[in-house]
Every structure is written in C-alpha cells, then in structure tokens.
C-alpha cells in the first residue's frame, strides 16, 4: 500500500524522533515500562505507515460487503440498516418473560433473545430433582410446547427475529418454535432467528452439555441439513467466543478458539455429506466486547478476514455468503463490578461503541446491575437506551468502518489475525478443536489467562475502578429483581396437567420413532418436531436421547 523507499525514509525519521525524546523521557518517564494489551501484543508509542508494510489494500481490506470482508459484511453497513438491538432476557414463567419481551419491543428493541433457565438448557423438566432451586432463575422455564406458546403470545413470529441461547437441546427448542409458528400460520421460510447450538464451547467454558461430543455433533449437522430446506433463513448455529472470553481468555484466544470450533463444524457438515455452500451461509458468530477499545475493534475485523480466508482457501467455498462472518456481540459481563454499579453504565457504553465500530450485526448491552442479580426493568431500559443513543445521536453510523486505515487499528488487526492463526495451526496439529478440548488444551489456556488477569487486578497492575482504586463505602444496592419462588410450583402444576390431558399413545409413538432414528442414522429433526407436537416434554425427549447417546462426563482440570 505504501512506497517502499518512502517507508525506509520514514523509518529513519522515526528513529531520529525517538532519539530526540530521550531527554523528555529521562525527565518524565512514561506511566509504565511497557504497554501491552490483554493478548500480549506490545503497543507502540505511535503507529506509522511502516507498521503496515506489506499490507495490500484490495487483498487485505477490500470494499465493504466484498471478500475478505475486513471492512464489514454489508456494502452500506449502518447507513443502510442499523444493527439489531437484541437484549438477552427471560426469567420465571413463560407469562412473565412474554411480558418482558413485549415491554422491550414497545421500547424499540428490534429483535428478541431468549434466555432459558438451566434445567431447560440441560434437558430436565422443572420437576426433575436436579432442577430444584434453579427453575426460572437464569431464564424462562420451558417444559413443553405449551410454555413456548405462552412465551410468544401476541408476538407475530413472521415479524420478529428471535435468538435462542440453547445448545444441547437446541433441536427441541427450535422444533417448539417452528410448531408455534405453524399454529400462528407462519411458514418456515418466513422465520428469522438463531439458535446458539454451539456444543463445543459448552465443553470448554459454558457447561450446559448433555451428550458426548460425537452424537452432539451429529445433532448439530442434522440441524444444518434440516434447516437448509425447512427454515432457510434461520441461523443454524452461533459459534460463540463470548463464553470463553467470559471464562477468562484473551482477545486473540477468543478469535482462535471460536474459529477453530467453526472449522470443526464445517468439517462435520462436510463429513455428513453436505455441500459447504448449502450450510455455511447460515453459520453465525457471537463475540464478547471487552474493555480494550482498539483491541476489540481490531479483533472483530481480524475475525472477519480470517474466517473469509479459511472458508475460501481451506474449504473452497464459492458462495461469498459462506465467507461472511456475521456476528452478534454482547458487552463483557465479567467487566461489570458489584461495587458502584452505576459505573457499569459507562463501561457498557464504551464497549457498545467498540462493537459498533467493529461492525457488529446485533448487540446486547449489559445492564448495570448484572454483577448483583438479574436486571430490573429500569436497568434494562438504560441498557437499551445506551444502544439507541449510540445509534441515533453519535454519528458513528454515518460511514462504513470509520477506523479502517488507522495505522494502529490496521496493525492490531494484522497482529490479531496472525496470532489467532498460529493458535489454529497448533490446534490443527493436535487433530482439531474437538481433540484439543478432549486433551484439555483449550480449557487450560483459558484458565491460565483468567488467573493471570486476577493476579493483575490484585497486584493493582490492572486498575478496576471501584474495586482496587477509587473505592467508596456504599450502602447495599437495593433495586434487585427477584424471581418469584412460586415459579416452580406453577411449572409443576402445568406439567402435571399436560401429562394428564395429552394423548399418551401419540407421545409414545413419537418417542419410539425418535429412539429408532437416534439408534440409526436418519435425521433426528422430523422426529423431534413430531414429538414436541405430540406434547412430549423436553425432559422426555432428552431422556430418550440420553438413553441412546449416553451422557458426557467432564474431566476436572485445574
């Protein structure tokens, strides 16, 4: 991009400039002996054109909407359409969550994002003994299609896009959603949304696995195959770095481990006999937006470019859409403090801006009180307003990739891509990410980084306002949302009623059909759809699959 001779001259000039600083630095040294970001990338005093030597504009950056998509996946980005404002929400019963969704839509939210409670995520009905104390706590409790019907009452499913954070039982919740849509008279090709369906990161960081890796990957590819025909606009997976980042890994590791998992899903799809361009356009991604503003912006750009290259060069994808890394972002929950919680509004606002400057397709902004409890309505409203202020008042949306061409951001983009690729090579050498997870490599890397971070906070090297600097004595934060403990009772009553009133022969037939399919190689999705329509419960369906597939036993690594 630059004339080589001019770069050499500039390098000489820069050297002279650095030397001229010596007296100033001797008198007033910089604040730290070295400046390094969370990924361990050293940060220069100032970035100059020669830091981008070798960069070729069309090859490495290109036009927005064109390969390798460094500058964005759409040609006009936010000039055409703003990102989707999508707050992750759900708690208690389907009725309460439905009320929260309608509230959010009234407040101008543009997409839904469903949080399920842990029993639902792990495939237990609310009456399972292990569900005690957890029903309706971190999300909504869904036991059967009845709950799902209530959850989306009065919400036209052809008009909203819905993201569901569901992994091991993703096929079941998607089937329930499709069945409810059918009841509303909405066709499969009118449905828009996403299931997380990313089982690999459950083993490394999020923990809501049920089955061992092999049958889990089969469920994933069954979903790819089924959805490409039945719900063609549905994002069949959201390959997630978010949870690994929250568990402690660095920005580079987040890109590397996420894309390594992405590679594993593509390979699984190919192995199942699918054509890469038939399913790759429906792969979506999910990243965290942490504190280091420029590192995060560069991370999103690097991830886009690296994925495009992997898809084209490694998997020979021909459809440009297969090469597009479209992603959702959530601000970093782990950076919220329980101390002086209102400060979190500011943290979230900067993180949201970084996500937008990085070209996100949708965004969740955390609420200020999330280090204390589930967010209250007021806290969620401020979080949503943070996005609206950013979208409508700040002018960051007026041009595509406004930081493209910044020496610093472009250099960081290069370095993050290179370092992430080094990790991916290492993971490839181990035999791919499922094998690296089995060996505990990824878990160990995450834990090391988390421990290093904590040590930096405790030593004071990393300042956390309100935690290790600028502390105050403060009264307990009062406005806290509490889940009604009667939720469990209400779920149990409903469950009992369903089981009594449904056609138990029909349930049995559907579950038997599912069992046979699971034992063989037939696609599971039509059978799961049949089962949810027969009013079989989530727990019953998962029990059949547990029976056939077995359960995953994690090995403890510390």
């Amino acid at each position, binding site marked *: 991009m630059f004339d080589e001779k001019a770069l050499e001259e500039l390098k000489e000039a820069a050297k002279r400039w650095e030397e001229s600083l010596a007296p100033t630095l001797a008198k007033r040294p910089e604040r730290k002996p070295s400046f390094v970001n969370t990924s361990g990338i050293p940060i220069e005093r100032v970035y100059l054109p020669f830091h981008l030597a070798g960069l070729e504009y069309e090859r490495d950056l290109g036009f927005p909407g064109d390969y390798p998509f460094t500058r964005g996946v759409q040609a006009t980005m936010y000039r055409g359409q703003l990102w989707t404002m999508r707050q992750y929400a759900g708690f208690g019963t389907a009725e309460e969550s439905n009320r929260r969704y309608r509230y959010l839509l009234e407040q101008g939210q543009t997409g839904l994002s469903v949080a399920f409670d*842990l*029993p639902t*995520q*792990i495939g237990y009905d609310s009456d399972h*003994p*292990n*569900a*005690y*104390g*957890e029903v309706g*706590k*971190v999300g909504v409790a869904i036991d059967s299609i009845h709950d799902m019907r209530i959850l989306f009452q009065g919400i036209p499913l052809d008009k909203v896009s819905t993201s569901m954070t569901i992994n091991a039982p993703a096929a079941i919740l998607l089937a329930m959603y499709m069945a409810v849509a059918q009841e509303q008279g909405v066709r499969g090709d009118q449905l828009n949304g996403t299931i997380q369906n990313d089982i690999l990161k*459950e083993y490394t*960081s*999020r*923990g*809501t696995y049920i089955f061992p890796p092999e049958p889990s990957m089969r469920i994933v590819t069954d979903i790819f195959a089924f959805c490409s025909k039945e719900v063609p606009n549905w994002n069949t997976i959201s390959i997630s770095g978010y949870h690994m980042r*929250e*568990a*402690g890994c660095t920005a580079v590791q987040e890109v590397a481990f996420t894309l390594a998992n992405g590679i594993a899903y593509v390979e699984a799809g190919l192995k199942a006999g699918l054509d890469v361009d038939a399913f790759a356009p429906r792969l979506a991604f999910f990243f965290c937006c942490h504190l280091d503003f420029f590192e995060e912006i560069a991370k999103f750009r690097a991830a886009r470019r690296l994925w495009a290259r992997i898809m084209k060069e490694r998997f020979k994808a021909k459809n440009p859409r297969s090469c597009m890394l479209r992603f959702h972002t959530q601000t970093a929950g*782990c950076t*919220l*403090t*329980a*101390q002086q919680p209102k400060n979190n509004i500011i943290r979230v606002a900067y993180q949201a801006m970084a996500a937008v400057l990085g070209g996100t397709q949708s965004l969740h902004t955390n609420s200020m009180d999330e*280090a*204390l*409890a*589930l967010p209250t309505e007021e806290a969620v409203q401020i979080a949503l307003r943070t996005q609206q202020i950013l979208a409508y008042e700040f002018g960051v949306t007026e041009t595509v990739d406004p930081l493209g061409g910044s020496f610093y951001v472009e250099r960081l983009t290069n370095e993050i891509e290179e370092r992430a690729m080094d990790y991916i090579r290492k993971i490839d050498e181990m035999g791919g990410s499922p094998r690296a997870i089995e060996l505990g490599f990824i878990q160990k890397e995450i*834990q090391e980084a*988390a*421990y290093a971070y*904590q040590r930096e*906070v*405790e030593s004071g090297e990393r300042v*956390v306002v*309100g*935690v290790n600097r600028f502390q105050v004595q403060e009264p*307990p*934060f009062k406005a*806290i949302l*509490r*889940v009604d403990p009667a939720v469990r009772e209400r779920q149990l009553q409903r469950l009992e009623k369903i089981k009594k009133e449904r056609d138990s022969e029909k349930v049995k037939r559907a579950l038997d059909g599912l069992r046979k399919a699971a034992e063989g190689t037939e696609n599971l999705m039509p059978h799961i759809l049949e089962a949810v329509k027969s009013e079989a419960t989530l727990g019953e369906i998962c029990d059949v699959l547990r029976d056939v597939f077995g359960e995953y036993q*994690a090995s*403890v690594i*510390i």
Partner: protein
Amino acid sequence: MAASRRIRVLVAKPGLDGHDRGAKVLARALRDAGMEVIYTGIRQTPEQVVNAVIQEDVDVLCLSSLSGAHDYLFPRIMELLREKGVDDILVLGGGIIPEEDIPALKAVGIAEIFGPGSFTSDIIKFIEENVKDRSKTRGEGER
C-alpha cells in the same frame, strides 16, 4: 491448626450453573498459598458435595453459585452436613449473591460470603484466621 497438616479445601459448584471461572481461579490461588485443594467440577448435587467433604476429609468448603440457586442449595448443603455430623469445617460462599440474602446464609452456618470483586488474598487470609482445629475429629492418617 497443627503445623503437620496443610489446610485441605474443597471448592464446590453445586447446582446446574456452569460459571466456574471464579471457582477455578480461587482453587488455583489457594493451592499457590500452600493449601491442598480439591475441585468438584460443575453440576454437583448437594449430596455429592457433602459426600466429597466427608471422603476428602477437608477443613474448608468453598461453595460457588452464580445462578441464583444459592438460596436453596447452600442451606440444603448445610443441612446435609449437620445430618452427617460434620460440624467442624469452615464453609464459605461466593458468586452472585444479593447482599440481602447474606444474613440468612450466615444464620445456617456459612461463615462468610465473598462476592464479585473479592480478592483471593482476602479469602486466603480469612481461611487462615478462621479454619477450625480438627486435630481431634478428622480422619485417620496425616496427608
């Protein structure tokens, strides 16, 4: 505390919650501070946690929950410990626990709650100062 024995700690994740960054960081910090640490892994039932306390003959139990289920799980574990006659260990709690829940947890015998932003150095200090002398009651054999 007899000098011959290092403090033994069980770090446990009761319930279905998979967030164990804090539990693992703490386990590592306690180990670096010279304690013997056993981590249960995630998704333990209260019964499994209590069995591990007894099997491993620990001096300290650190419970972590971020899903809001502490209000059921922590008292249930304390109840099971009492039923099994375990009354000489130090029990600590951590995770996302609203301040107004703390008195009830302390009332069932949890010595202290360490929420978000806690320093591992403070937890280590608390354990060293409050661990009970179990030289008469603990299982046979020095480890």
